[in-house]
């Protein structure tokens, strides 16, 4: 009788410990069309490779709603919420305390990825996220119009202003009354910070805050950059651009009412869609350079991060490795249209056959400039807020470049206090 009970207990214990190894991980599944197929692919691979199960949860599309939700979940220390999620480029420093240190697990993959995004995802020397897909600002232009007026895609902002003014005038004389030269995102939100970064950095005015954390924005080049853009308002850019986010600006360009547009790569595929009036008429180029000859494109995109409170660190790392290897990135491109972050894939013939537009973007991706989010850690929202509000004032006409950058310098230094934390 005693022997039976003992063997029963051993069996039971063995059963329990076996069950304990099969954990359920929760991962964010992208909600874009094609997301479900991609997630199924990941789930099949993961469940075959490890004995764990994978569940999916969805987050809202809008960036700030997603961040707010994530923060509530972290505040509640709910480990059941999500183990792997996609972090916006600017959240890596912000979520430093909530994400797992991945240096030991994936540090060796550094060379496979573009250096810009990888550096952005490294906080204080620790790898906190792995780049999932890339996005940068690019300049769109109307190939057909530039041909018609015998111009080349501009390499400097001065050229852009000249070409835009000329062609806008000609087109309006020819009867196209609502035509504008240059469109960008001017609303008071993160997108304006990206635009401002591109203008100021291409003029040699720095990136607001350098990697060491010093505030560098109060310089005449930055002021000149802002003044240049302020000079566009009402002339080659409609005043309403100060109310545009990405979709509103794409609407103007895609309807054929703009010559140049600064936007993210997603607009390219949409402009070549079957019913688009711009099919075959759109070209893509790096953003123009400023007086000192450098072109700057803001870095965007999303990164995979692991919840620091995850119950099964090994399973999470295994899943992360699956998500970020070359095959996954190819699937990601196929189902979701997301540009890969592994540099080798841009030379891969099979990949380029399915997505020929990637060749256009490769060099632009390689030179992307990140916003100063990682250096400013959890205070980046205040930094960004100061940047876009001051920029908005300049573009609005209520301030000029010189006063604005001095004002911005003071504000940023007040936010910084003794140091960024």
């Amino acid at each position, binding site marked *: 009788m005693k022997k039976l009970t003992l063997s029963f207990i051993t069996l039971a214990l063995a059963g329990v410990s076996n069950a304990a190894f099969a954990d359920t991980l929760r991962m964010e599944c992208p909600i874009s069309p094609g997301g479900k197929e991609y997630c199924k692919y990941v789930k099949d691979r993961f469940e075959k490779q490890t004995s764990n199960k994978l569940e999916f*949860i969805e987050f809202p599309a809008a960036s700030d709603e997603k961040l707010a939700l994530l923060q509530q979940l972290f505040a509640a220390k709910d480990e059941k919420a999500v183990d792997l999620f996609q972090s916006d480029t600017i959240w890596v420093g912000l979520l430093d305390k909530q994400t797992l240190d991945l240096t030991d697990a994936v540090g060796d993959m550094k060379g496979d990825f573009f250096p810009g995004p990888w550096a952005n995802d490294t906080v204080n020397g620790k790898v906190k996220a792995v780049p999932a897909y890339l996005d940068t600002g690019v300049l769109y232009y109307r190939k057909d119009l530039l041909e018609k007026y015998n111009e080349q895609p501009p390499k400097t902002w001065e050229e852009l202003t000249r070409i835009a003014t000329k062609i806008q005038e000609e087109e309006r004389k020819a009867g196209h009354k609502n035509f504008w030269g240059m469109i960008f995102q001017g609303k008071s939100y993160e997108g304006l910070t990206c635009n401002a970064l591109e203008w100021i950095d291409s003029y040699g005015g720095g990136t607001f805050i350098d990697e060491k954390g010093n505030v560098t924005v109060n310089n005449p080049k930055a002021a000149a950059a802002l003044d240049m853009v302020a000079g566009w308002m009402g002339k080659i850019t409609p005043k309403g651009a100060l109310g545009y986010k990405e979709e509103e600006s794409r609407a103007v360009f895609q309807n054929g009412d703009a010559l140049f547009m600064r936007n993210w790569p997603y607009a390219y595929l949409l402009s070549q869609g079957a019913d*688009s009036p711009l099919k075959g008429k759109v070209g893509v180029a790096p953003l123009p350079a400023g007086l000192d000859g450098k072109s700057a494109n803001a870095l965007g995109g999303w990164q995979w991060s692991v919840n620091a409170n995850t119950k099964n660190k090994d399973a999470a790392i295994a899943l992360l490795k699956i998500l970020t290897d070359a095959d996954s990135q190819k699937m990601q491109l196929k189902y979701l249209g997301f540009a890969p972050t592994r540099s080798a894939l841009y030379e891969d013939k099979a990949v380029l056959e399915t997505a020929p537009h990637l060749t256009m973007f490769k060099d632009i991706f390689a030179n992307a400039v990140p916003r100063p989010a990682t250096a400013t850690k959890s205070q980046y929202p205040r930094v960004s807020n100061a940047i876009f509000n001051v920029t908005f004032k300049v573009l609005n006409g209520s301030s000029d470049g010189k006063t604005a950058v001095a004002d911005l310098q003071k504000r940023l230094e007040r936010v910084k206090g003794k140091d960024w934390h």
Partner: protein
Amino acid sequence: MKITRRQRKFGHSLVIFVGATCAVLFCVFPFYYAIITSLRTGQELFLPAYLPSGYHWSNYVTALVDNGIARSLLNSVLVATITVGICLLVSITASFALARVPFRGRKFLLFTILCVSMFPQVAVLTGMFELVRFLGLYDSLGALVLSYTTFSLPFTVWVLTTFMKSIPVELEEAAIVDGAKTWTIIRRVFAPILAPALVTTGLLAFIGAWNEFMFALTFIISGDKRTVPVAISMFSGASTFELPWGSIMAASVVVTLPIIVLVLIFQKRIVSGLTSGAIKG
């Protein structure tokens, strides 16, 4: 020239007709625009148009099939109905006491109840989240019912109290003379007269709960328990920047239709039969 009775009547009807047309146009035009937009696709979405140019039902297919808006409709209906049901039930008795019985602390109580709705929603979010997790209601529709009572209950209590106050005391005294107990008074005398107020309050509170977004987003994480506003926020195009405007409009039309049906059913009750014998007799 004296205005004849007939002319006055005609003038009266004309004013009503013009007024009604303006009101309906003003209120319904954006919704009409949403319907038109939901029937267009792709490039056409960006240009203003006032008549449907074709009938692309694909947006509706996307909304219903790919994004499961039907399931979230059910969840929303459930949550809103239960919330309003509980609030109205509790409010009828409370408002009777607050309107009819002079007791100490009545005014203070009323004001305190009102104060609950005075905080910005974002501030109580964290505290509410803690409460929901403590009660084990996280990721369940019960969490929503609980949190929606915080803004529905003050509203229903106050409105019903106000309407109770306007019912003449004679009615109640007559019933008391007839020997009716308090509960009977409420049931037989007040409730019928209060019907329009009840329906109006119920409708407004229902729609308030129907539209709520912040709590619904934070307290529910499973896809199949989502309510309508959160489900709509999950619509995404191929990239996070793209807004599939056509299918969002289609989803909005789909979720507004049940409410319109609800209002059509109940709108007769918004108007009371004040000629009911209670007062005249």
